[in-house]
């Protein structure tokens, strides 16, 4: 008896393996096909490393653009976070525009890209395992999440350009763009900020990825992915 492959059967008509650059470009137009190919192929180290590095570089570019426009400008949610209790609790404070602070931000950005990739992959894998009752490889999930990095990178570049045009480091490609006159702690502005075009795109692509990995319908995977990455964020703002 011939053993069956462990991968899902959704990739019956998969073409020959495309290059990583092609995959990253195809993610913008036809992510489902890219995921089909990734799911069918054996795990590849470059599939998650290169997109994650790309995200880190694009985020560094955005960080530079933000710090150039306004060193001491506090973004919307940072304003919420910077409570008086936390500000006076530490004896030594870093100046936001200082070299140390910039290095730290750059380090955190790069670290966040890698840690975030593995965390999101874990979440998708857990949703599949616990709620959808399907089993798939964690490494494949890491690849799927990392490949969405091309959209993340594009979003970072667009955001940097928007910041350059508007001169406001808090500008985002979100509905909050139309409510810039509101204070940054305003709940409505925070809510509108959640409707970020690129974030919604990424979430949709993640839902497609989960659907391909688990073999469940897009509706079901979208419920969980949107439920966590979108509704839970909205709920945090509304309930907080």
């Amino acid at each position, binding site marked *: 008896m011939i053993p069956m492959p462990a991968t899902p059967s959704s990739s019956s008509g998969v073409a020959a393996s495309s290059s990583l650059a092609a995959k990253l470009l195809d993610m913008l137009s036809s992510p489902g096909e890219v995921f089909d190919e990734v799911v069918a192929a054996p795990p590849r180290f470059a599939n998650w490393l290169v997109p994650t590095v790309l995200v880190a570089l694009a985020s560094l570019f955005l960080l530079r653009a933000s710090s150039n426009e306004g060193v001491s400008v506090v973004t919307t949610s940072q304003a919420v*976070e910077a409570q008086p209790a936390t500000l006076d609790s530490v004896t030594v404070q870093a100046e936001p525009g200082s070299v140390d602070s910039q290095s730290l931000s750059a380090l955190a950005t790069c670290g966040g890209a890698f840690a975030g990739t593995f965390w999101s992959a874990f979440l998708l894998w857990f949703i599949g395992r616990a709620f959808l009752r399907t089993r798939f490889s964690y490494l494949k999930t890491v690849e799927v999440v990392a490949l969405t990095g091309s959209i993340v990178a594009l979003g970072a570049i667009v955001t940097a350009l928007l910041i350059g045009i508007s001169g406001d480091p808090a500008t985002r490609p979100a509905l909050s763009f139309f409510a810039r006159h509101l204070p940054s702690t305003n709940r409505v502005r925070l809510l509108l900020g959640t409707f970020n075009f690129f974030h919604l795109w990424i979430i949709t692509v993640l839902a497609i990825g989960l659907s391909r990995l688990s073999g469940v319908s897009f509706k079901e995977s979208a419920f969980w992915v949107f439920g966590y990455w979108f509704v839970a964020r909205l709920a945090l703002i509304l309930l907080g």
Partner: protein
Amino acid sequence: MNRALLYLWFALLKRRFLDFVRSLRRPTTLIAFIYVLGLLGVPFWFRHHEIFRHLVERDILITGALLMLVGSLIKGFWQRGLVFEPPDIEFVFTSPFTQRQVVCYRLLPNYLYALVQGLVLAALFAPHLSHPLLMAAGLTLFQITCFHVSTAASLYAGTLPEDRHHRLRCMMLGAAFLLTALYFRAAWEVRFVPAFAISPVVQLLFYPAVTLPEAASSPALHQWALRLTPTSSLWLRQLLQPVLYLSAIALAAGVSLWSLFRLKANLFEPSLATSSHAAERRQRLRQGRDLATAGKTEAHSAGLPTLSLFGGVGAIVWKNLLAARRSHRQLLLAFILTALYAGSLVALLQHIHTELHAASLDKLASPEVVMGRLAFHLGLAFWVAILAPFLQRIFPFDFRRDGRHLLDFRTLPASPLCLVLAEVAVPVGCVLLCQAAGLVPLFLYARFDWPIVLILIFAYPAVALALNSVWNLHYLLSATRRAAGHAQSPSVVGTLIVVVLSFLVFVPALWTTRFLARCLSERAGVALTSDGLQGLANSDAWLKFLHTGIPLTGAGALGVQYLVDFLLLLALARLFQRAEISRESQ
């Protein structure tokens, strides 16, 4: 609704009610029932209180109704199909009833529950309602609606494939939780989420749908990073040290697991033998038999006793003594406990008396010191008495072991009182023997007056007898139930009752002590207060109370305690006599 099903439901309900009433004869069920009644009775007693008025406010009622509805929906959807009794599946399902009739039959108990609940709640909130009956009817009908929703959800869930049902169940639970939280936030201003949850650092949890530099530039992250810099090396050291320890322990755990997995030993054969042994021990424990002899079945035979004391019912005493002699584990345990107890007691006495010898004679003769010495030595006597409950558990030579022979004992030509006395004699004797090890040095050091010595000598058997009698009531009841094929092991509630009872049996004696001490102290001209031992204004009166009052008080308390012991033994004998242990009689 079919009349036959209605009759069936009514007949079953009647039988269940009668069964429940009969089950109230069991003390544990009765206590649980009284507890529930008490839980209902307390709010009913305070039903006019202001808090009950708040509970029937519009907002609370709406919240409660929403929670009930959502809860019913989730609870119903949680199970696929309805739950029936096994006989219902066998008889009702195969009978010519329509699906609607069967569903109605299944809902009938729920309707009754809704009615009772509506009436109870209406009675509870009646003082704050303008139309209590209307409220009761409304509550009942709303509860019935919830039952309908729940049943419909269950039936719908039954039509779904199992995997799909599981996924939908999780979705429904998540959505219900979110909606409930939003409702509480909107209606009651309840914040389930702390303020830091919308900080950029927390937003990292939603990667990749985040703007990374926003989180990376967060002040909180920078502050946290600053604390790790060498400028605050103390904090860093404090963090690093535990991390280092934790890492070392984690490494040790990992290495040991790796070594364990690499161990090439046969797992199955030794495990089989050990498991069998453990199962046998568990079985013996359930049957109330001794664990120590689980592996031993052989013992040297002993010669017949020559003393006439061991004739008749005394043979049981002899048998238990023999069992005690052969139970090396119990004897060793008791010896260790006694040695530790008596050793610490002697050390304490030696230390205190060395210090007393150093004091001057005038000081030793003062009433404060005399009373202090007496109180200290009486405290040590109490300390020795506390040994009894522990030792009682160690010596199982009573109905714990002989519970299996109840049927044989019933055929013996001995009165039940003599038999139960014989049963408790050996553990009581063993406990007293161990206590003597602590008591003898105490008497030697304390040099009590002879009336107090006599009282103490008689007090220890009273205590040991009371404890053994109470616990043997429990053992006898358990043995009876076991012999009748009921419970295999005693219930937690039952054990708890026995523990409480083993304290309560001393309450009459303690109350007598308190009463006599107050009377006699007043007569002697001494005021007994909490700091009475310190404030000795009238030393002659105190000394008079010491030499006459305390012995008389002790004697009175002892008399009451022996009376209680006698009553306990009578109860034990009565229970032994009346116990129905044959299976046919149940």
